């Protein structure tokens, strides 16, 4: 204690120079256990004596007073102004009180006391007015009469002075008959009224004049002094636009020739486009590896971190996204272009219908540049492919092309001819039936044009509801495509053109929704069949087309994609659950295989079903089955009705077969007429299967268990080769596959787990936590902390209150004690006094007695 105190005082001394009483004996130092840097303490020094005195004083002022008045029912309240406020000097108090009194004196005492604001008048006029001296009339009125009432008036009012009345009326009586008293009074009244009116008029005039004078004065005043009231002047002083100013402003706003970006050269444009594609490709690769969710910010921040936000290995690339149908990539050329075209379109729409004709040409031009759709360029491309396919004789194709004339050259012309008959404005169909009625009976180009015009006329930027309408249109068109595909014969040319790429780009979400819907339908159908029969039939051509369209519209290489992944599962179902019963099934299955390969062509993922199916196809084309039935997988059976479905035994057919691509419409249920043709189809199927196999071999060559995958295929192919019954082309193909497989030597490297990261040791970098309040428990939620804080506060307050109450009681007890003591002392004193007086009395009495006795 003795040691600590001097230290405390020393420390305190410079800090509190303002303290009135730095008596070291009154200071109590709260010693700290540890010195903590940077902590501000409020209570390191206490003044117990001072605070105790303060507390006692407060109690005497409040508690004691209450205590003394405890038995009294009436209270004395001193309401004098400032009686208890100590910060006012007595003079001030007096001044205030006097002012208040005066004010109260002037205030209206009561609203019911009407006399209070009675106007004092003189001669019927307000005394206040008179005091203002603006009663001109009065001042100029006949002064001689002032002070005395006219005789007439007195006579009339008071009826007195009959003589005068008589005298006065006499001359009047001479002129006409004497007036009665009543008439006289009336006359008098009229006269006085007239007078009054005149006086009023005069007063009004005077008032007017004064006002005018006032106004004049004000005007002069503004000239004289600078303290002009601004509010009035602001309106008046609206500066008239000056000609010069106007010119200056105009010059300021005038368009200046700004330095703009120079026109880009072809090479630069190409480079930019390449850059854009590169970026998109990078996006695609990232999604393919499925790393979307795995990017995390490093949690631990090292002590060496500069807190400049720099983190190594952060991926700066952004997700590709589309907003309102436009690609959302920075520096994107396509975006600007499409925006431009959009605005152009809008303008064109406004131009009206009369030049719609012209616009058609422009539209196709635009699409070539900005939006990617089936412009004439791509159309001609497809037409040429159609032409090449035309060599195979197809009656229904000619039917379609009959109105078109020659298909390639006059494309534009037919386009125009068709458009002449078509209306220019279409509303978006509300139901599928509407759409079908709109499109049925039209040629391919017309149908395309109709769909195109529906889109143009209802572009989402034109009206509010258009977006929802077009979103629905996508679903209808998809249905239409399915409808066309299932029709007999399948109308594939329309589907070919109606790829819906644009609409999908505009509304990715709803488009994915509708594609998912049709896929779910297909799967549901298959699942039902599997449930009832245990197996399913190959789905119709429409499902295959849907799958293909899904592959065209969405990126198939993503690790996970909301549309593509279900589509892949769907294809896998088709390949595993549907037994191959006919040549149609073979064609369909091969198309699905092809789709599968197409889907994974970029991501090069492994598809067991595909290998199984191709193995099965090879098996049913193999001439003699002595072995290896066990490696076959589900939809194919080693023995049975369809185990030789693709076997061609006719040598002539083998000889006449030419290799070509497989027409898709064979997949739909038309019967193949002749055996020769059937055999040709068989060989084509086999050729397609071999081609697919070759791709598989190339693609999966790098897989670690490649040889295990292809071993059964290899065996079957070798068997095929040994037989030598196939056309030479196919034999070559299978030979090349075999050599490919042979060449694919690979080393089997033993597997090793990735080394798991060692559990890091505890580091010295401190863990930084936000400190809200010292001495509080950290690390809980905000609500919890708040609750704890409140509980703690409550506890403290409670304790404080208890202490206060205890101290109050002590104080009261002390007071009572002192009262009692006082009372006792008083009594003692009184008793003493009494005894005293009695003793003296007794003494006196005895003395008296003694005296008597002596006498």
């Amino acid at each position, binding site marked *: 204690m003795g040691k600590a105190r001097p230290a405390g005082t020393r420390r305190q001394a410079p800090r509190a120079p303002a303290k009135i009483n730095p008596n070291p004996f009154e200071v109590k130092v709260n010693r700290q256990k540890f010195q903590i840097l940077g902590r501000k303490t409020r209570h390191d020094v206490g003044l117990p004596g001072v605070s105790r005195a303060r507390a006692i004083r407060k109690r005497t002022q409040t508690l004691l007073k209450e205590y003394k008045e405890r038995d009294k029912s009436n209270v004395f309240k001193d309401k004098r102004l400032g009686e208890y406020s100590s910060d006012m000097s007595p003079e001030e108090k007096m001044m205030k009180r006097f002012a208040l009194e005066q004010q109260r004196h002037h205030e209206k005492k009561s609203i019911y006391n009407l006399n209070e604001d009675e106007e004092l008048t003189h001669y019927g006029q307000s005394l206040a007015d008179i005091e203002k001296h603006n009663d001109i009339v009065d001042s100029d009125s006949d002064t001689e009469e002032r002070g005395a009432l006219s005789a007439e008036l007195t006579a009339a009012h008071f009826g007195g002075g009959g003589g005068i009345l008589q005298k006065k009326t006499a001359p009047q009586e001479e002129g006409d008959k004497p007036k009665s008293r009543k008439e006289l009074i009336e006359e008098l009244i009229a006269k006085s009224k007239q007078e009054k009116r005149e006086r009023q008029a005069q007063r009004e005039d005077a008032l007017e004049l004064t006002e005018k004078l006032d106004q004049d004065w004000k005007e002069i005043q503004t000239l004289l002094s600078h303290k002009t009231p601004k509010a009035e002047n602001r309106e008046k002083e609206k500066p008239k636009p000056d000609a010069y100013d106007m010119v200056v402003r105009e010059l300021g706003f005038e368009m200046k020739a700004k330095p703009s970006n120079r026109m880009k050269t072809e090479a630069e444009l190409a480079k930019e486009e390449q850059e854009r594609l590169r970026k998109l490709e990078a996006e*695609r690769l990232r999604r393919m590896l499925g790393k979307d969710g795995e990017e995390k910010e490093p949690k631990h921040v090292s002590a060496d971190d500069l807190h400049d936000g720099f983190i190594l290995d952060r991926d700066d690339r952004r997700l590709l996204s589309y907003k309102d149908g436009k690609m959302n990539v920075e520096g994107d050329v396509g975006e600007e272009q499409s925006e431009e075209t959009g605005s152009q379109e809008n303008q064109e729409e406004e131009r009206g219908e009369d030049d719609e004709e012209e616009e058609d040409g422009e539209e196709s031009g635009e699409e070539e540049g900005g939006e990617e759709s089936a412009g004439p360029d791509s159309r001609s*491309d497809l037409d040429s492919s159609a032409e090449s396919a035309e060599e195979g004789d197809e009656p229904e194709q000619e039917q379609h092309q009959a109105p078109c004339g020659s298909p390639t050259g006059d494309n534009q012309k037919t386009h125009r001819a068709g458009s002449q008959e078509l209306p220019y404005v279409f509303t978006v169909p509300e139901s599928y039936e509407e759409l079908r009625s709109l499109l049925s009976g039209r040629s391919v180009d017309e149908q395309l044009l109709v769909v195109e015009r529906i889109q143009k006329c209802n572009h989402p930027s034109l009206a509010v509801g258009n977006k929802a309408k077009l979103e629905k249109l996508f679903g209808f068109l998809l249905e239409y495509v399915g409808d066309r595909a299932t029709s007999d014969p399948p109308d594939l040319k329309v589907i070919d053109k109606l790829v819906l790429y644009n609409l999908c780009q505009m509304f990715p979400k709803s488009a994915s929704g509708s594609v998912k819907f049709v896929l779910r339908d297909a799967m549901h159908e298959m699942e039902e069949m599997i449930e009832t029969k*245990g197996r399913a039939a190959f789905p119709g051509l429409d499902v295959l087309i849907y799958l293909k369209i899904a592959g065209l519209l969405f990126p198939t290489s993503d690790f996970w994609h909301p549309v593509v992944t279900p589509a*892949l599962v769907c294809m896998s179902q088709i390949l595993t659950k549907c037994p191959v019963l006919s040549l149609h099934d073979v064609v369909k299955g091969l*198309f699905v295989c092809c789709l599968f390969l197409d889907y994974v062509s970029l991501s090069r993922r492994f598809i067991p079903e595909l290998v199984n199916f191709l193995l099965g196809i090879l098996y049913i084309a193999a001439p003699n089955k002595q072995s290896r039935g066990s490696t076959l997988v589900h939809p194919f059976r080693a023995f049975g009705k369809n185990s030789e479905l693709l076997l061609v035994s006719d040598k002539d057919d083998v000889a006449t077969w030419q290799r070509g691509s497989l027409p898709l419409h064979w997949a739909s249920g038309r019967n193949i007429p002749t055996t020769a043709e059937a055999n040709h189809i068989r060989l084509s199927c086999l050729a397609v299967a071999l*081609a697919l196999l070759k791709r598989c071999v190339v693609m999966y060559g790098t897989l670690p268990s490649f040889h295990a995958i292809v071993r059964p295929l290899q065996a079957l192919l070798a068997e095929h080769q040994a037989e030598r019954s196939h056309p030479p082309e196919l034999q070559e193909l299978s030979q090349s596959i075999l050599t490919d497989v042979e060449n694919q030597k690979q080393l*089997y490297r033993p597997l090793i787990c990735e080394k798991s990261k060692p559990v890091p040791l505890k580091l010295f970098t401190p863990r930084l936590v936000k400190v809200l309040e010292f001495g509080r428990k950290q690390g809980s939620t905000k609500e919890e902390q708040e609750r704890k804080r409140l509980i703690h506060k409550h506890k403290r307050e409670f304790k404080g209150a208890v202490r206060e109450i205890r101290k109050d009681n002590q104080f009261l007890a002390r007071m009572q004690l002192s009262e009692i003591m006082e009372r006792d002392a008083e009594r003692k004193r009184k008793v003493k006094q009494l005894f005293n007086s009695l003793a003296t009395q007794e003494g006196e009495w005895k003395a008296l007695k003694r005296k008597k006795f002596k006498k």
Partner: protein
Amino acid sequence: MEREPGAEGARRALGHLLQAVLASRSEANAVFDILAVLQSEDPEEIQEAVHTCSRLFGALLERGELFVGQLPPEDTVLAGSHGAMRKYKIWMRHRYHSCSSHLGELLAHPTFKVKELVLKTLMKFVQLEGVHPLEKPKWEGQYLFPRKLFRAVVGGLLSPEQDHSLLLNQFCEYLEFDDIRYHTMQAASDAVAQVTSQHPKVSLAFWNNAFTLLSAVSLPHQERDISNFYVKHVEPSDMWKVTHLKEHRKTFQAMWLGFLKHKLPLSLYKKVLVTMHDTILPHLAQPTLMIDFLTSACDVGGAISLLALNGLFILIHQHNLEYPDFYQKLYGLLDPSIFHVKYRARFFHLADLFLSSSHLPAYLVAAFAKRLSRLALTAPPEALLMVLPFICNLLRRHPACRVLVHRPRGPELDADPYDPEEEDPAKSRALESCLWELQTLQQHYHPEVSRAASVINQPLSVPEVSVTPLLGLTAYEIFERDLKKQLPESVPLEFIPAQGLLGQREGICAQLFTLS
């Protein structure tokens, strides 16, 4: 006596006849008329006749007007000099006999209503005959049951000609009664033996009927009270065989063994095996007797072998059966089709059970893991999602097999040392190999499969992954799950514009297919 046509007329006429016969013995010959109606063409008339017969003979049985004891032939009795009453009783017993044989024939009637009614009538006769036995008890308290009549009923039910599954369902109601069940088992094994001995080639209908009846028999699990009798006895005795569960079990076993020793059709094999482990095996007196059947079923191959495993496992597990090649057989069952068969879930459930022991040798587990992963190269995604955790569980259980996924400082090889053709897991050299197949499947097109296969890249976590919820996974469920997954805020789109349906000219679709 002329009869009005139609069921109504027949009913009235039969009613009169019935009254007459029951009223006085002199009218007894009217029974012939009643019995004649049983052979009528009209099903309704037959039904009426059956009703009448039921009432007539029911009443006669109750009255005791049928001859009791060994029945002498009719002719001798009628010629002989017995009392009229005795003659009448014997004659009536003969009529009863012919009536019940008629009814037995009617069990094969095409109309279901007739069959049902006949069955009910016959069962009523069985009950009445049981209460009023037609044989004399050889000793005091002998258990008497109309075996002959009942055998005829069961024989009629198990007809080789037509499928009686509906009628058998009706009959199942009676199997609630302990005595009926007991005698049914006896009669059924007799019937099966009889039919198979008579016909060299037994029809499928018979097997189906027999299986329906046999599988409907279910014994109580505990010997609480075998007293629920169809034929009510005045004083049941403990001496009777019917009252002991042990006897029931013996008969049950005899019935099934008698049934299963024949060569059954394949579909029936599957049905038997599916129910084997929970309806047949627990009730046999000596379950080990099933081993012949099960091992032969196990050798059949394919799905049947899969199903036989379950029963075999129960025998090995609970009845100390020594079966040395069990795991080799199991190993042999693994071929590409197991991922496609209907019993996939059951098989993998069992395989998980069989391989759950931690005392299995490492070479065996390694061979299984390797074989399964090799097969996984041909599996559809729904099977892959199940089999990949399965393989990982194997590796978890047997740390010695972890070399399959983690072999540091191993030599590089030219070929996979594992021999897929080898049937003995011990010689397959699986432990020298690695699970490259799983590495391949990391490239699988389905993201979840790829993820499941990527587990081996890290050291395996300690707790096993439960395969049970994955066993019944179907592709449709996966599809639905994928569809319902939370969409990202923007659906990624293809940025290369589509050109026609088949895509670019250099794409494979366009190369291999044309639209027209």
